[in-house]
């Protein structure tokens, strides 16, 4: 998504008031290389979906069947990623729809991603106010998003200010995953599209195969280095007044013919971070993964953070797409909509998703449904650096504490209140120990499913007397085994 709307080859004109499923199209928000984004109003507001959203139209229609093959592939890539990956710093997809409207051949067959509504993108912010004071904080969140993406085994492939969205509350979401690719071993295959100013030297003129270009996470690290320099100084790190000149400089730098000279306006604390991201070769950049990078960036930005990260790793295997056709002929005349992906069709395959050294809570029994995972304590599930937003309106139904014995933390205690405080029944229930529940290391099982905790912390052990089962405390349901 970029702010520019002129001369875009793939802009999709959608009339105001047009209906797609429950959504009514409002004003255009942005037009990018492959898609046009519109504001939309929810005509059937309910608890499940927000009153407004951003609709991203990708022209995957059938009007020109052989000509826009790559667009279909790019759309599928984005849908696939958003469907499988949920993380606080990645834009959230509510649903994906396909327009079926023979009366509008230019729209018929278009893929529509219903996305969280953002206020704008970073490139617009940078246009209005180069080198904003909020730069370091934004960069910390962008790095966090990149870390969440890499952690789940994906490479973004096109990180740049136009693809960083800013939400109403000032927080950041990474978006535009058309070029994102899931790692196969150490590489991923990305479609052959690039933004030269953010492309590492080894990919400026890449070798390609029929599957595309092979990219690695270090490509995102390079792009992050360029982006950080642009955000903090308002200039590109490599010299030159045109993209070609800067690409040329990148080549000379990668060959060792030229030194990297970062802007003197760059705060000292960022110099080394950016220099590391812009290491000339993949091998050198590989030493700086997003985990270590995030720690350094948060320190430089003065953001209090911790090493914890909700583990939202998607399943490693595929299953047939869940396709439910719903004829919505009543909506806007002859328009029908195929619901391809339902919004809560997230990863749903059991306890094994919970990484070692983590405690995981699930939205369904037996480790199914949405999962939030932590490596440590969290005093507030719904705000702060890590959030587990689905628990705002849904209970937790199962838990797995896949802990590490060597830590000596044998249990996880959880609470209905923030900051490990007991609330309501936690206090009144007999033998409550002033908490909602506690689960021992290596234990997994179903919970009552009537509440969601607001905080949890790791403790030495759940109980010192034999007054209850060692695994999960009173609110556990009858069937603790998966």
């Amino acid at each position: 998504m970029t702010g520019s709307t002129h001369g875009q080859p793939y802009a999709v004109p959608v009339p105001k008031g047009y209906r797609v499923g429950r959504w009514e199209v409002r004003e255009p928000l942005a037009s990018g290389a492959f898609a046009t984004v519109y504001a939309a109003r929810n005509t059937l507001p309910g608890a499940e979906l927000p009153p407004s959203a951003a609709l991203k139209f990708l022209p995957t229609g059938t009007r020109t069947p052989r000509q826009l093959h790559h667009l279909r592939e790019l759309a599928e890539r984005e849908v696939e990623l958003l469907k499988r990956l949920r993380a606080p710093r990645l834009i959230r997809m509510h649903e994906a729809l396909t327009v079926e409207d023979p009366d509008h051949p230019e729209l018929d067959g278009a893929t529509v991603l219903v996305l969280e509504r953002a206020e704008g993108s970073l490139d617009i912010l940078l246009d209005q106010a180069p080198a904003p004071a909020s730069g370091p904080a934004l960069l910390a969140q962008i790095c966090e998003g990149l870390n969440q993406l890499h952690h789940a085994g994906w490479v973004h492939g096109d990180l740049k200010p136009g693809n960083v969205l800013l939400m109403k509350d000032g927080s950041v979401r990474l978006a535009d995953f058309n070029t994102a690719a899931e790692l196969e071993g150490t590489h991923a295959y990305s479609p052959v599209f690039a933004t030269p100013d953010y492309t590492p030297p080894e990919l400026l003129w890449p070798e390609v195969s029929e599957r595309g270009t092979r990219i690695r996470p270090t490509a995102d690290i390079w792009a992050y280095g360029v982006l950080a320099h642009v955000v903090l100084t308002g200039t590109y790190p490599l010299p030159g007044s045109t993209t070609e000149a800067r690409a040329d400089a990148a080549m000379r730098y990668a060959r060792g013919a030229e030194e990297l000279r970062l802007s003197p306006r760059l705060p000292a604390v960022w110099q080394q971070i950016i220099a590391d991201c812009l290491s000339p070769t993949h091998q050198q950049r590989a030493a700086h993964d997003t985990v270590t990078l995030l720690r350094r960036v948060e320190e430089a930005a003065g953001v209090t953070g911790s090493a914890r990260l909700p583990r939202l790793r998607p399943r490693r295997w595929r299953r047939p797409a869940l396709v439910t056709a719903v004829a919505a002929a009543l909506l806007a005349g002859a328009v029908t909509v195929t619901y391809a992906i339902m919004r809560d069709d997230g990863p749903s395959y059991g306890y094994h998703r919970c990484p070692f050294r983590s405690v995981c809570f699930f939205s369904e029994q037996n480790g199914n449904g949405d999962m939030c995972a932590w490596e440590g304590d969290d005093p507030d599930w719904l705000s702060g650096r890590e959030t587990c937003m689905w628990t705002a309106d849904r209970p937790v139904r199962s838990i797995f504490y896949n802990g590490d014995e060597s830590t000596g933390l044998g249990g996880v205690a959880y609470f209905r209140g923030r900051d490990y405080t007991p609330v309501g029944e936690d206090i009144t229930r007999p033998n409550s120990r002033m908490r909602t529940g506690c689960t021992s290391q290596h234990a997994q099982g179903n919970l009552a499913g009537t509440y969601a905790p607001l905080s949890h912390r790791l403790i030495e052990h759940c109980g010192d007397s034999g007054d209850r089962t060692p695994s999960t405390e009173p609110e556990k349901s009858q069937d603790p085994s998966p």
Partner: protein
Amino acid sequence: MAVSMHSIIVVPPDCEGPGSHLRIGPGERLAFGRTTPGNDLVIAHDGVSRVAGEITAHRAFWILSNHSAHQTYVVENPEGAGEHVKVAPGRQDAPIPFEFSRVVLPAAGDLLSFDVWAPCHGFRARAAGPGAPGAATAPAFALDRTKRYFAVLAALCEPRLRRAPHAPLPTVDEVVERLRPSWPAASRSAVSWNIDYLAVKLRLRPGPDTPVPGQRLNGKKESLVSLALRFDLVREEDLLLLTAPVPSKAVS
């Protein structure tokens, strides 16, 4: 991943294949002349200066310095209907704008030549407006639709664009016939040359080596066509090229 950051390819005279191409990247220099020490490209002819000249890759194009005392070099565009650049003796860093160039050195009555390719010449993406291209997501391929190689690629893709996705690819002879109306001098070798050049230009990863040249060419054709169709490098509208005359005069 083999990191290949060259932008300019120099094809020596009597070149035996891509293995003997000389590749240079931005800022790199290649000296040519009569003697071995000091020259990367040796042109063994008594009429050529010992230190005859120098080619420097500069962004996606190249610059030529003429070190000879008396001879003017001519750089021809073989697809350019006689278009050429003269580089006078002693001239330093003359920019050469062609994607394909033939450097002609006069040498005691003979004309010696070698080729230089600039496969990274950039072109704005189809239908994209002007603007700040560095910030826009763009296809990594830039093809010149007025070049022969594009007509060859279009002819190769034609059966699959017009008919079935698995239609057999045309043979080189069929491509020659198909292009003859717009390119009367088309020949087997010229078409094969363009197929080889496309593989270089699109940086196609070489497939497993097969000893039979025909199979190798066929594999290359297959890879080019799937790449071109997958990324929409050739579309149905481009097939018009096959019937309209190519703007430049045929030289090959």
